[in-house]
């Protein structure tokens, strides 16, 4: 997937189809030498809503996109990552967050942080699974 495509996809993920296209179109393409793709997960503890963003050219853009996709007033970015995956785990006592180059490890870290439980949500950037 080329960077333009990824940007559009990320935009879509962040704010929904229509708005996503607008966001994607407004982001300048990453420099040719940059191959780092950033992702983020946002969580609204009160509603359980999540927002995902992936394949953005910067951490701040990924965080903003995830926050926007989540949408609720108490949404906050709980993990960001570059060239990898992020995961949220839920246990009766804790929300746990993990990030790693692959999904299995990110999930493991999240479950470890939560003290067990289950995987609540996850997302990976291109080329990582």
């Amino acid at each position, binding site marked *: *997937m080329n960077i333009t495509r990824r940007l*559009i*996809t990320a935009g*879509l*993920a*962040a*704010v*929904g*189809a*229509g708005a*996503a*296209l607008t966001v994607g179109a407004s982001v300048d393409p990453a420099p040719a030498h940059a191959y780092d793709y950033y992702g983020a997960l946002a969580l609204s*503890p*009160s509603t*359980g*809503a*999540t*927002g*995902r963003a992936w394949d953005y050219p910067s951490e701040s853009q990924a965080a903003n996109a995830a926050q*926007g*996709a989540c*949408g*609720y007033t108490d949404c906050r*970015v*709980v993990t*960001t990552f570059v060239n990898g*995956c992020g995961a949220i785990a*839920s*246990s009766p*006592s*804790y*929300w*746990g*967050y*993990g*990030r*790693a180059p692959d*999904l*299995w*490890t990110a*999930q*493991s*870290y999240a*479950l*470890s*942080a*939560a003290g*067990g*439980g*289950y*995987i*609540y*949500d*996850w*997302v*990976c950037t*291109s*080329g*990582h*699974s």
Partner: protein
Amino acid sequence: MHRPNRLVAAVVALGAAAALSLTACSSDDSGEKAPASSDPAASELLTKAADSTEALKGAHITVTVNGDLPGMNATSVVADVNTDPVSGSGEATLNMGGTEAKAPFVYLDDRLYANVQDKGWIDYGDGRSIYDASKVLDPEAGVPAILRSLEGAQEAGKEDVDGVSATKVTGTVPASKVAGLTGATGKSATEATEALDTTVWVTDDNQVAKVEVAPAAETTVTVTLSDWNKTVEVSKPDDVETPKATPTTSAPADQPTREKAPN
């Protein structure tokens, strides 16, 4: 309603909603699109189909996404689901960082267990990050809800769906009614009122055969139902894991790795 019924209903509703949205808009004096009035025969058919879907004991379902849909990690799902109690098993195809990965799954006792890329079975809670198959037949979040919220319903002829004769109905559905099928949980999806083009195919027995919704530009979600009232045996995988590897590096100060969950 039981969870299985909700799944069937959700699928039906999705199809119906999508169908309506495809054709049911007109312009009012302000230039804004307003739902066209529904054809009585089409509305009656949708009601019967929604009732039939809510009454299903089980079904074979497929979900296919064409285009980009950020709220879904899955690009396709094939499953057999029961409604009383809600359970099911199947396989999801996931978009994993630009490549496809298979994820067999089991849904049982309000938990979805999946084995992504054959790396081991993990508990995914309600399954939102794989695909919450329990929503497809859900009366309030799935196909039935879509059928009952379809505006501007119009019959658009008959077509065969997988060899079964079905009446095609088009119209629009509020975007929030589709969130259950797409898995989107963000405010923009769950509270959206935008009218989405929707098409539903209803068999001569008033069963929903297919629902197609366009939740985004150049993106469609298609749900099919078959083997209506078929039930399947579902059991929890024997080897569900809870991997707990510990990271070797510290997380940034502004991103703690855990937070207290509300009681």
